């Protein structure tokens, strides 16, 4: 599983881990039932405090995203297709909220912001075709 953290980004490391696990679930890279790396292994690989990883895992468990089984690795919860679809929308919403914040700060009118979004979608689509 691909998790990378940038401890100096100003975003808490536990949140970076949570966001990436959720993203991988939304994108289908992680499927229900897939095992997650052990706290100890992941903390050693990322070079971060193991408590940070358990905090991320505990919160994901609380949110119903991961399931803990005694004595075994954590797994992605048995989420149904509709929940994963909702997760995708949540991811998009968070990402666009950031764009909205920038638009507000720069005083870009809503119609203009929507137009930019439309153009970017269009551009991506054309690139895929070519």
């Amino acid at each position: 599983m691909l998790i990378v953290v940038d401890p100096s980004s100003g975003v808490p490391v536990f949140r970076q881990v949570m966001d990436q696990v959720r993203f991988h679930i939304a994108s289908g890279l992680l499927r229900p039932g897939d095992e997650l790396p052990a706290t100890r292994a992941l903390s050693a690989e990322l070079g971060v405090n193991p408590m940070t990883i358990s905090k991320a895992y505990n919160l994901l468990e609380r949110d119903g995203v991961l399931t803990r089984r005694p004595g075994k690795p954590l797994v992605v919860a048995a989420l149904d297709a509709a929940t994963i679809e909702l997760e995708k929308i949540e991811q998009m919403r968070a990402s666009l909220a950031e764009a909205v914040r920038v638009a507000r700060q720069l005083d870009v009118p809503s119609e203009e912001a929507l137009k930019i979004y439309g153009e970017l979608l269009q551009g991506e689509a054309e690139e895929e075709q070519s």
Partner: protein
Amino acid sequence: MTILEMRDIHRSFEPGVPVLEGVDFSVDPGEVVGLLGRNGAGKTTLLHIAMGMLHQQGGSVKVFGLDPHRQPVDVKRRIGFVSENQILPGFLKVHEVIELHRSLFPSWDDHMSRELAERFHIRPKARIKTLSKGQARQVALLCALCHKPELLLLDEPAGGLDALARREFLETSIQALSDTGTTIVFSSHYLSDVERLAGRVVMLHASRVLIDNSIDELHESFSIALVPHRPQGTSGALLALPECLGVRVRSDAVHAVFRIDPDDACALITEKLGITDALCRTAGLEEMFIEIAGGER
């Protein structure tokens, strides 16, 4: 039980020039505390007082509930210490240094000692003086870890090491943390290392503890505000706010660090100063450190 408790610590080396002036903080079992501060802020002094190597002139220190000055052996047996300026006797061989530590600590773990020596690729017969700085520091870490200390005090342990040696040092400390739940207090100028390892950050500034918060709080509930220069007296007005930790006047704007999140900081500046175009955002530790250490308060 509290692992380390410091109450109202005072210490100076020259009359009238306090290094520590009423420092309070305590560390619970299993915590990893990063100690920050500029050169000369008193980090080493504080760690030396905790070790019982230096006596405070005022206040009290308890390590494992004991007085490190009165019961030095009982305390030191349960502590591991690595410092940038640690001097291992250069004429000794690696295995002789290890043997010396082994004889001093009844709780020495031979298995762990062999495992670390192998991981670090240290030749037991090499003389200390022939080792690189990174290897010598690894020998020091091995000696500090293998008696399974309950408290690890690291004074700028990564100082002078290259990026890979630093990462290896960090990984070994992290492993000790996972295996035995060792409590760690470490000072470091490498703020990304602090962000990786520390659960809590204590910053010494102007002889006192200025910040004592979890690293997650620092990332989410502290902010930097960029406030346009006009009107006159902005920096003074910002400094007068109790939530403001420090300001730095730059050519672009006044930079102010707040112990509240960006939205609250912007709202506060609007309410108290009538300034509506301040930019407030969260920041990494390095940026926050520079704003505070380089500013006034």
